[in-house]
């Protein structure tokens, strides 16, 4: 599924939400859980879902700790600073719903702070078919998302969420085993250290579950394993290139043979940022990314990207090139892909993805939000809902 289709799906779901507010049960104030749980929770993974789960537990005064495999928190939300005269989301970048969702995530009437946003509706949209660049601006009538103007998704978490519990995030602690067969849950990291808790919330990327990076005891039920196998987290890559001049359009979608069902989009990363630097972004997922992520290193990747851009823009890419950065998300050992979702019949799949193990090990993540799957805020809301589920159970 392409991001276009995904956005349409989100729009449909948006209509559904307005008709059936119960779908957003996790967001309504009257759904504030009765806290029946008291004990310690371990959260595995410090991406959007993990951080929002922690934020929720913190609100209710629950003891918790986050174990994060990499040397930073944020997961696929990451910032690139000092590359241009504005900070760049080198991971998740767009907000695929109304910015009012910040209120749902923060859920605190006394919270103070402001976020500058851009309504992201490109003025010039083109499609490259491998031979010709064709305008399809009429699509912009139907296309519309949001982006951060002066900050990034990472700064949202870094500024408003993570500071409340920084001391509870343990970095460089990849989890390799979770044993829920006893009274408590025993979590083992790659240094053979054990961490004991009453409940565990697993928020690792879907690929980590699919590739059996973590050994679960007892193992997943058959339907849950089938749901994990069926869910999708395609290859993903982002590239940013700084140029002397802006010779490109707001959006150019690459739609060549073999890539029609995947995504490869060049876009003006400085669009409406109000800055001087000219930065072109490339976001690719699925087969559109695999062509690049499977290349041997970043130098080969940037050469392939510049070749394609020179083909599209008559040699102007190398002519105006200044510098670049490649973020190969498929090569990140604790990520291994782009965004994730349940695939066809995802609603049934999500129920099984969320299925806890022995009522002690719970799951959250972007693929597990029925309303906003494959999004940062969807992951965050999933983390909140799973944390509340833990709180509701004694």
């Amino acid at each position, binding site marked *: 599924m392409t991001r276009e289709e995904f956005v349409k799906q989100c729009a449909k779901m948006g209509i559904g939400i307005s008709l059936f507010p119960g779908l957003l049960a996790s967001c309504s104030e009257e759904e504030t859980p009765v806290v029946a749980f008291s004990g310690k929770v371990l959260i595995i993974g410090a991406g959007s879902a993990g951080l929002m789960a922690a934020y929720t537990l913190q609100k209710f005064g629950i003891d918790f700790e986050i174990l994060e495999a990499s040397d930073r928190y944020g997961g696929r939300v990451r910032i690139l600073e000092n590359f241009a005269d504005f900070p760049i989301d080198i991971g998740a970048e767009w907000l695929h719903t*109304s*910015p*009012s*969702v*910040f*209120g*749902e995530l*923060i859920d*605190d*009437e006394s*919270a*103070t*702070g*402001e*976020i*500058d*946003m*851009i*309504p992201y*509706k490109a*003025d*010039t949209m083109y499609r490259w078919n491998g031979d010709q660049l064709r*305008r399809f*601006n*009429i699509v*912009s*009538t*139907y296309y*519309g998302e*949001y982006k951060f*103007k002066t900050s990034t998704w990472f700064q949202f978490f870094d500024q*408003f969420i993570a500071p409340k519990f920084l001391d509870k995030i343990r970095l460089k602690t990849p989890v390799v085993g979770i044993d829920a067969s006893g009274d408590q849950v025993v979590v083992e990291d790659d240094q053979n250290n054990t961490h004991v808790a009453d409940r565990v919330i697993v928020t690792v990327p879907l690929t980590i579950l699919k590739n059996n990076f973590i050994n679960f005891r007892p193992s997943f039920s058959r339907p849950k394993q089938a749901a994990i196998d069926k869910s999708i987290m395609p290859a993903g890559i982002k590239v940013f290139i700084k140029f002397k001049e802006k010779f490109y*359009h707001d959006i150019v979608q690459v739609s060549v043979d073999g890539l029609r069902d995947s995504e490869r989009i060049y876009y003006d990363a400085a669009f*409406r940022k*109000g800055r001087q630097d000219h930065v072109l972004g490339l976001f690719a997922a699925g087969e559109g990314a695999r062509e690049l992520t499977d290349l041997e290193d970043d130098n080969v990747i940037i050469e392939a990207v510049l070749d394609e851009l020179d083909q599209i823009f008559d040699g102007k890419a190398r002519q105006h090139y200044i510098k670049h950065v490649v973020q190969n998300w498929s090569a990140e050992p604790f990520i291994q892909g782009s965004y994730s979702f349940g695939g066809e019949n995802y609603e049934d799949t999500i129920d099984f993805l969320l299925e806890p193990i022995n009522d002690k090990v719970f799951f959250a993540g972007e693929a597990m939000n029925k309303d906003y799957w494959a999004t940062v805020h969807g992951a965050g809301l999933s983390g909140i809902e799973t944390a509340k589920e833990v709180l509701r159970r004694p």
Partner: protein
Amino acid sequence: MNKNRIFTTFFLVLLAAFAQAQPELNKASIGYFSHGGIHPGGKIGAEYVLSEKMKPVSEVERKISLLMNPQIGGFIRENFYTGILVNNELGLQRQRTDRKRYSIYSIGLGYLHFVEVVDYTVNLQGEITNKTRENRPYFFPSVNYALGRDIGERFGIYGKLTYGMRMTSARENATQLFVEFGMKLGLNN
């Protein structure tokens, strides 16, 4: 295609039609008007008959009318833009005298004005606290197709598609689609 040539041609056609005819106000229209079919708005218009002739078709006749249709519409896309379209269309209406259904093919020239939201501030409760807007004017030549039906002597309904190109020297041209549904009220005795 040269933009100036398009503007000039449309303008001269409309001017010539208006100057040579003695327009008769025939109908007024009001309708739901939407950008792309999904961003809602409203529109009012008037319909002048510039000339009419009857053409035999089988055992009945077909009335062919040359119409002029000035109109003004507005639409909104929350958090993105508000727009106004002021335009004038010149079209041919074809209707068999034994049928209530008719179709109109027309070309139009208009002024399309967007007030675009370029950025805004959101507080942590998710409320928008400050919007920055930018005015964007365009010329808007269009082709249109309307399908209508007379319900009574003085009342009818119609649906209409407008496909055009918004043009300005400040940025690239972009095609636009408008969808309209509404009613027409006869003003002649």
